[in-house]
């Protein structure tokens, strides 16, 4: 039964790709049915009605045993519910959003493939299985980002995402190999990992595995692909780049926490990476004008929070935030998508304005999502962020203050885009004539906004699923600090952008995204071009001239010299032959 989770979307992807592409309606139906089936199965698993199937042995060699199985512990169950639930809603939403796209059959096939690989990551029982699905997620995200491949920017963004992920995945693969070499197994087995304890390889393995997360979850320095990935259709941004795929990195960290916890050094590197990513991304988000880019950077910032929580040894907090973030960020993206849909794909918030009155449902749900993200008390984001701040405060005060400042920034930029895009006067014709989106797009927004409100409360049971929250070490200062931060951010945002019709602050450093793209461009140009030139020289002169032509020259010279011996004189040959035969006889019988 539990195999349905994987098989339903896989079959759907296969069917759509092989047979159903000319029939968009049928493809949509199959794909949505598959995601619904996956969600029902996940629900059955969470309620304990469906158990884990026996693992199939795939590779069984001495020293290497790879199974295709299913882990369905509390971590996986929570993640499965979140992923399949959000994915189902996004499938439904895409019905409306992609209604006029000629390639929508292909789109739904790719969504199914993505869902299958994402579920594969969640349920995998060992590193190799996880790696396979990990790469599949990379491929399907490449396909989805580049869905509008006739646009150059989309094709470039897809390639960039794929390459940045490859860099991280290479580290991940090395980490898996290191783990296998030292522990002798690829299974997620905390017992086997004890072989690593105290070994100098423990931090190496942990950090290499972390590389995978840096790529997938868009942590600095491999974050550059995430904002560009917004070139994909908005449902994709909601599904992949908000709720599920980028969360896979954090989920992976929680899954392999038994390796990470062996090395305090690695944990502190992870915590700092997360903290810095959270802060930098929030700073950049304050100065972006593209509504999807703001959301992308806020995603990156929230992922930074989660990684920070893992680094502070609080996987519960990380998973809690991951889940609530999945809900409200998917909600925000779909709300933004709804606006874009109404405004004919106008993404600049300064060319919107006043949309709130035309699209009340979108406005209210987006507002709830923004409030949840900003961490306004009473909504889910507040509770989960609270947990992370507590974890940070227990471990490293500096990181705590960074995180608190990030919370203020989050409130600030969410206020900014909400005010600028939805309130005030319409600044363009398109914004004046905006109409509310169809109900297939509104329905997921309503469901998700309900979830975004209630997911944080204990009756919703996320913490219960994760096995109770950590009661010890609650710092009373933390809620006060985070409340103050949120209030500060809100007020600052409201004052600055309350009636603004144009940008009031200009900080080029943030607007240009800390020049990461420029730095990478420059490095690639300089380093790669120079090394390429060096190698080209070596190829031309050392390999081409000395080795290849030199070798040919020596051989032909030898041939020319030997040819002199072969003058064609028959009698000379006979003489030499006799001489040789005599010599051999002398050698053999001479003594």
């Amino acid at each position, binding site marked *: 039964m539990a195999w349905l989770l994987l098989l339903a979307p896989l079959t759907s992807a296969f069917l759509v790709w092989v047979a159903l592409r000319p029939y968009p309606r049928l493809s949509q139906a199959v794909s949505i049915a598959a995601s619904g089936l996956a969600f029902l199965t996940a629900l059955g698993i969470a309620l304990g009605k469906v158990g884990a199937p026996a693992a199939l042995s795939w590779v069984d060699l001495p020293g290497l045993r790879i199974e295709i199985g299913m882990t369905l512990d509390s971590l996986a169950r929570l993640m499965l519910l979140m992923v399949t639930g959000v994915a189902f809603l996004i499938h439904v939403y895409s019905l409306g959003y992609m209604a006029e796209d000629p390639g929508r059959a292909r789109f739904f096939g790719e969504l199914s493939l993505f869902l299958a690989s994402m579920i594969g990551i969640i349920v995998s029982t060992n590193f190799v299985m996880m790696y396979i699905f990990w790469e599949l997620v990379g491929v399907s995200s490449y396909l989805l980002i580049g869905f509008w491949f006739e646009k150059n920017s989309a094709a470039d963004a897809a390639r960039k995402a794929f390459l940045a992920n490859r860099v991280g995945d290479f580290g991940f693969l090395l980490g898996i190999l290191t783990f296998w070499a030292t522990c002798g197994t690829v299974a997620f087995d905390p017992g086997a990992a004890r072989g690593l304890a105290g070994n100098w390889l423990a931090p190496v393995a942990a950090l290499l595995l972390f590389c995978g997360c840096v790529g997938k979850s868009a942590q600095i320095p491999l974050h550059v692909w995430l904002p560009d990935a917004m070139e994909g259709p908005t449902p994709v941004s909601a599904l992949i780049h908000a709720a599920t795929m980028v969360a896979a990195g954090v989920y992976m960290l929680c899954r392999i926490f038994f390796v990470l916890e062996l090395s305090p050094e690695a944990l502190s590197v992870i915590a700092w990476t997360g903290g810095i990513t959270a802060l930098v991304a929030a700073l950049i988000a304050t100065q972006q004008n593209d509504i999807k880019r703001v959301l992308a950077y806020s995603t990156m910032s929230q992922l930074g929070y989660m990684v920070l929580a893992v680094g502070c040894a609080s996987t519960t907090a990380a998973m809690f935030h991951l889940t609530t973030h999945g809900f409200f960020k998917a909600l925000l993206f779909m709300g933004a998508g709804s606006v874009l849909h109404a405004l004919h794909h106008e993404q600049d918030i300064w060319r919107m304005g006043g949309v709130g009155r035309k699209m009340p449902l979108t406005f209210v749900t987006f507002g709830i999502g923004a409030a949840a993200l900003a961490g306004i008390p009473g909504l889910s984001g507040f509770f989960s962020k609270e947990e992370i701040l507590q974890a940070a405060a227990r471990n490293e005060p500096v990181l705590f203050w960074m995180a608190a400042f990030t919370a203020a920034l989050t409130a600030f930029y969410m206020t900014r885009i909400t005010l600028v895009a939805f309130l005030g006067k319409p600044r363009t014709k398109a914004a004046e004539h905006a109409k509310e989106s169809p109900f297939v797009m509104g329905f997921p927004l309503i469901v998700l906004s309900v979830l975004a409100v209630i997911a944080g409360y204990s009756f919703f049971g996320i913490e219960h699923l994760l096995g109770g929250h950590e009661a010890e070490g609650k710092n009373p200062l933390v809620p006060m600090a985070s409340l103050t931060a949120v209030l500060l951010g809100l007020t600052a945002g409201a004052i600055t952008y309350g009636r603004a019709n144009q940008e009031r602050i200009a900080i080029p450093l943030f607007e240009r995204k800390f020049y990461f793209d420029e730095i990478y461009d420059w490095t690639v140009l300089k380093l790669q071009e120079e090394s390429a030139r060096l190698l080209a020289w070596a190829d031309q002169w050392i390999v081409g001239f000395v080795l290849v032509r030199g070798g040919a020259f020596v051989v032909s010279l030898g041939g020319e010299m030997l040819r002199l011996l072969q003058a*064609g*004189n028959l*009698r000379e040959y*006979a*003489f030499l032959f*006799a001489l040789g035969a005599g010599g051999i006889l002398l050698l053999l019988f001479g003594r």
Partner: protein
Amino acid sequence: MGTPTLGHYLVLSGLLFAIGLAGVIVRRDLLIMYMCLEIMLNAANLSLVAFSRFSHQVRGQVLVFFVITVAAVEVAVGLALLVSLYRMKRTTKAEEITALKF
């Protein structure tokens, strides 16, 4: 003078072989070189027969019959080649047959 020993035969055979070899090396005419080759072949035959006779075994002599037969065949082919070569080139001098030389 007693009866000839194995040594006598071998020396004779060696001399014949050397004469043949010298002929192949020194002479220019293909026909003569051919005859010298035959001398060398027969020198080998002689030593085979001598060994066979003195070790009271027939195997050597049987081998010699084979050699003679094969040599006859070979001579037939070789002489035919020589005749047709002469018809084409009007010469049997080794130095002057250079069609295949580079």
